[in-house]
C-alpha cells in the first residue's frame, strides 16, 4: 500500500502547492487579479453566504465538489484540503498519539447545525470555522509578512490572533490525529453528509480477521470492526487503516450504496441543544451585549455592500487585506462586536485607499466588496476627511506643510490664504463634496501620533447594487478640469 500512500502525499502536496500558487499570484495589484478557485469551490461558503444573503451565489464549482463527494466520499478532506494537509504535517511532527478515550465526532454536526441556525436567524459566523478561510487568513496575517520580511510585504496588525488560532488547531493533534477534521470542521461535517452514500470507499475483504487494528488507528473513528462497517460520514480517506492492516485485508472497493445507513451519532438532546442555542445566540450577536456594534469609527473598503449584508457576506478570507497596496486594509477584532469579528476595515492612519486601484473588489470571493471598474471605484465615497485645526501644522503653527493637499488624489483639499492673528498663510480646507474619504491625507500627515486630518464615516456610500457614478458627481469632477482655481499658493511672491 506504499504506492497509494505516496500517491496521496503527492496529490496533497500538489493541492497545497496550488493553493499557495493562487494565494501568491493574487497577492499584488501588479498582477492580474482573480478569485482563488478554492473559495469558489467551497460548498460551505456557497451555502452559508447564499442563505445569509437570500440570494444564489455561483454554484457550479461547489456542485461539482458535492457530486464528486457523493461518489468518492470525503476525499476532499484527505487529499485536497490545505488545512488538512498542514494538519497531517504537524501530526507527523507530533508523532504517535494514544487515541483518546472519548470521541467528540458528533460535535462537528452540532456545530454545523448551530452555525446554520444562526445564519438563518440573524448573522453568519460559519466562515470563522471554514478551513479554506482559516488557511487564507493565517497565510495573509502570518506567513506572508514573515516570508516577505525583507521587502515591503504588508504587516497585518494583531496578526498574533490568527497565529494563535492556527497553532491551537494544529495543537489539537496532541489529543488525536486530525482532531479538527474529525470533530470540529463544519465543512467536514457537510461533506460527510453529502458523501454518506459514496460508492468508492474503503472496506474489509471477506477474509478480514477482525483484529481491530484499523479501528484503533482511524483518526476519525470511522471504523466499527465488529460490524465490519466504515462510516462514510467520518472516513476522510487518510489511508491509515490501509497502512496498518497487517493482513492487508483493507482495500479500495466499490460498494453498493444502501439506504438506511447509520446516521451520524447524534442524540436528540444534542440536536435540540444546538438548534436552541443557535436561536438564542443568533439574535444576541447583533446586539450590544456581545460587543460594540454601533458608533464605531470604522471605514470599510470601497464598494462594500451595506453593513448588515456586508458582515453576512464577508467570509473573513483576508484576501482584500493581502492585496491592498498601501497596507491600509486591516482586520477588525471586536470594534464591531462579535458579529464583525475579523472583517476588514481601512485603517487610514496606516494607509489610505489608492485612487488608481480596485484590487479588493477583484479578489473578494462573495461580493461583500463589489467588483468595480477603476473609474467607478474612484467615485465611491467611503467617508470624509476632517481637519483637527488645533493639531494641524499650517493652522496651528503657521508652517508651510500642506502635505495633505499635496497628496490628495482628488484635489479635494484646497489651500487658501487665511489671516490668523496677523499671519496670512496658506491653510488647508477639505472640500466635502469632492472628498471620497480615501485617507491618503491621513496616512501622510507628518505630525507625531494621531493625524491632524482624520477620515470619519461621514457621508459614506454603500450601494447594494447600481452605479456609483452619477451625473452630479461627474459634473463636479469635470469642473476641476475646466479650471476652478484655488488660491495662489504662498510659494509665489506677489
Amino acid at each position, binding site marked *: 500500500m506504499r504506492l497509494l500512500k505516496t500517491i496521496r502525499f503527492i496529490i496533497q502536496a500538489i493541492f497545497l502547492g496550488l493553493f499557495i500558487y493562487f494565494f501568491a499570484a493574487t497577492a499584488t495589484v501588479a498582477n492580474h487579479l482573480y478569485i482563488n478557485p478554492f473559495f469558489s469551490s467551497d460548498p460551505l461558503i456557497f451555502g452559508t453566504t447564499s442563505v445569509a444573503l437570500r440570494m444564489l451565489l455561483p454554484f457550479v464549482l461547489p456542485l461539482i465538489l458535492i457530486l464528486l463527494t457523493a461518489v468518492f466520499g470525503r476525499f476532499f478532506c484527505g487529499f485536497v484540503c490545505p488545512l488538512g494537509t498542514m494538519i497531517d504535517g504537524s501530526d507527523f511532527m507530533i508523532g504517535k498519539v494514544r487515541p483518546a478515550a472519548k470521541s467528540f465526532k458528533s460535535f462537528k454536526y452540532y456545530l454545523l447545525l448551530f452555525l446554520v441556525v444562526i445564519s438563518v436567524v440573524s448573522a453568519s459566523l460559519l466562515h470563522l470555522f471554514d478551513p479554506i478561510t482559516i488557511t487564507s487568513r493565517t497565510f495573509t496575517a502570518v506567513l506572508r509578512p514573515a516570508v516577505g520580511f525583507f521587502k515591503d510585504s504588508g504587516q497585518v496588525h494583531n496578526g498574533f490572533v490568527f497565529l494563535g488560532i492556527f497553532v491551537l488547531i494544529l495543537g489539537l493533534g496532541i489529543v488525536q490525529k486530525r482532531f479538527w477534521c474529525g470533530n470540529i470542521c463544519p465543512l467536514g461535517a457537510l461533506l460527510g453528509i453529502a458523501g454518506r452514500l459514496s460508492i468508492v470507499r474503503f472496506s474489509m475483504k471477506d477474509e478480514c480477521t477482525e483484529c481491530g487494528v484499523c479501528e484503533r488507528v482511524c483518526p476519525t473513528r470511522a471504523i466499527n470492526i465488529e460490524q465490519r462497517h466504515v462510516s462514510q460520514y467520518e472516513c476522510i480517506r487518510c489511508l491509515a487503516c490501509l497502512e496498518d492492516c497487517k493482513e492487508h485485508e483493507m482495500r479500495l472497493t466499490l460498494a453498493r450504496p444502501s439506504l438506511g445507513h447509520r446516521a451520524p451519532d447524534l442524540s436528540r438532546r444534542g440536536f435540540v441543544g444546538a438548534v436552541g442555542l443557535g436561536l438564542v445566540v443568533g439574535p444576541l450577536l447583533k446586539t450590544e451585549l456581545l460587543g460594540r456594534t454601533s458608533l464605531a469609527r470604522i471605514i470599510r473598503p470601497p464598494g462594500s455592500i451595506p453593513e448588515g449584508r456586508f458582515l453576512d457576506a464577508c467570509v473573513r478570507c483576508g484576501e482584500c487585506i493581502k492585496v491592498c497596496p498601501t497596507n491600509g486594509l486591516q482586520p477588525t477584532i471586536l470594534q464591531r462586536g462579535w458579529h464583525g469579528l475579523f472583517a476588514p476595515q481601512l485603517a487610514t492612519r496606516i494607509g489610505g485607499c489608492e485612487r488608481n486601484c480596485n484590487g479588493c473588489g477583484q479578489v473578494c470571493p462573495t461580493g461583500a466588496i463589489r467588483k468595480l471598474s477603476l473609474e467607478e471605484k474612484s467615485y465611491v465615497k467611503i467617508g470624509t476627511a476632517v481637519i483637527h485645526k488645533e493639531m494641524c501644522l499650517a493652522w496651528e503653527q503657521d508652517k508651510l506643510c500642506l502635505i495633505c493637499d499635496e497628496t490628495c*488624489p482628488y484635489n479635494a483639499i484646497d489651500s487658501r490664504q487665511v489671516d490668523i492673528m496677523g499671519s496670512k498663510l496658506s491653510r488647508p480646507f477639505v472640500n466635502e463634496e469632492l472628498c471620497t474619504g480615501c485617507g491618503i491625507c491621513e496616512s501622510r500627515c507628518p505630525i507625531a501620533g494621531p493625524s491632524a486630518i482624520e477620515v470619519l464615516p461621514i457621508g459614506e456610500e454603500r450601494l447594494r447594487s447600481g452605479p456609483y457614478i452619477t451625473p452630479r458627481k461627474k459634473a463636479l469632477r469635470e469642473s476641476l478640469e475646466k479650471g476652478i482655481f484655488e488660491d495662489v499658493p504662498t510659494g509665489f511672491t506677489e
Partner: protein
Amino acid sequence: MKNISRRDFLKQAMAAALSAALLPRGPSLFAQGPETVDLVVVKGDKVKALKKALEAYGGISRFVKPQDRVLIKPNISIASPPEWGATTSPEVIVGVARACLDAGAKRVIVADYPLRAPVVCYEKCGLKKALEELKEVDVLLLTQERFFVETEVPKGLVLKSTKIARELSKTDVLISLPTAKSHSATGVSMGLKGLMGLIWDRGYFHQDVDLNQAIADLATVIKPKLIIMDASRALTSGGPGGPGVVKELNTIVAGVDPVAVDSYTVGLTKWYNKVFLGKNVKHIALASKMGLGEIDVGKLKIKETSV
C-alpha cells in the same frame, strides 16, 4: 576633432575666459558652435524634441562616458496616468535611458521616492510598460530608510544635514528629468523641488524648517550634470498630484543650470491662471541668491528650435 583656424580658436578661448570671468552667472554650456548656449528649448513631439535637444550638445556622450554609472531622477511619485501631467512622460524617461546606454553607460538606474503606493505609481505612470522594451534599466523606488545615508549640507542656511539616497555616492552622472507642474505649497514643482525625491525625511522640510530655503539648501549638495525638463504637458493647477488644468506645451527644455531651467519653464505658461516669472517663485529665487544659477531669463543665451 576637426581642425580649426587660429582665429576661431582665439574666439573660443576668449569666450571661455569671458564666461569664466562672469562666474556668478553660474555654469554654462559649450555647444558645437562658436557661441555658448545656456538653454536648449525644442518644441514639438516629445520624443523627437528630446533627440534634438541632446543633439544640440553633440549627444549625451558629452555628459555620459563609457562605463559611467548613471542615475536618472524623473518624477514618478504619483500614481496617475501621464495625461494628468503629474509625472514625467515615460517616453522621455526611456529616451534618455536609451541614449545613456548607447553612450556606453555601465549601469542606468531610474530612481524616485513614491508618494503613493509604490507598485501602483510605477505602473500607472506608464514606466513599467515603457521599460518592457529596455530591460537593462534598473528602477529603484526609494521606499525604505536603509536606502538613505545621513549627509552634511555645509552651505545650508536652514538645513545642516539630511538623509540622502545612498545610490548617489555610487553614481557618476545624475540626470534630473522633472515634469512641469504646479504645487500647492511651493507654487511650482520642477527640477529644484524634484530633488526632494532623493531625500528621506520630507516631514522635516515641511515642519521644522522653512521649506523654500530647505529646497535651495538641498540643491547645494545634489547637483545633476544635466537637467532635461519634460514640459510636454504642464499641470498648471491642482498640483502636485492633480487633477487640474493640463496645458499641452509640447516643449523640452535642457540645460546644466538648475535655476535657469526651472525659471525658464515658469515663464512658459500661466500658473493658477496668473502670469509668473521664475523670480516670483520663492524657492527658485532663494536658490539663485545662493549662487546656484541664473534666474533672469533675459540674461540667458537660449537656442530655440522645433521639430
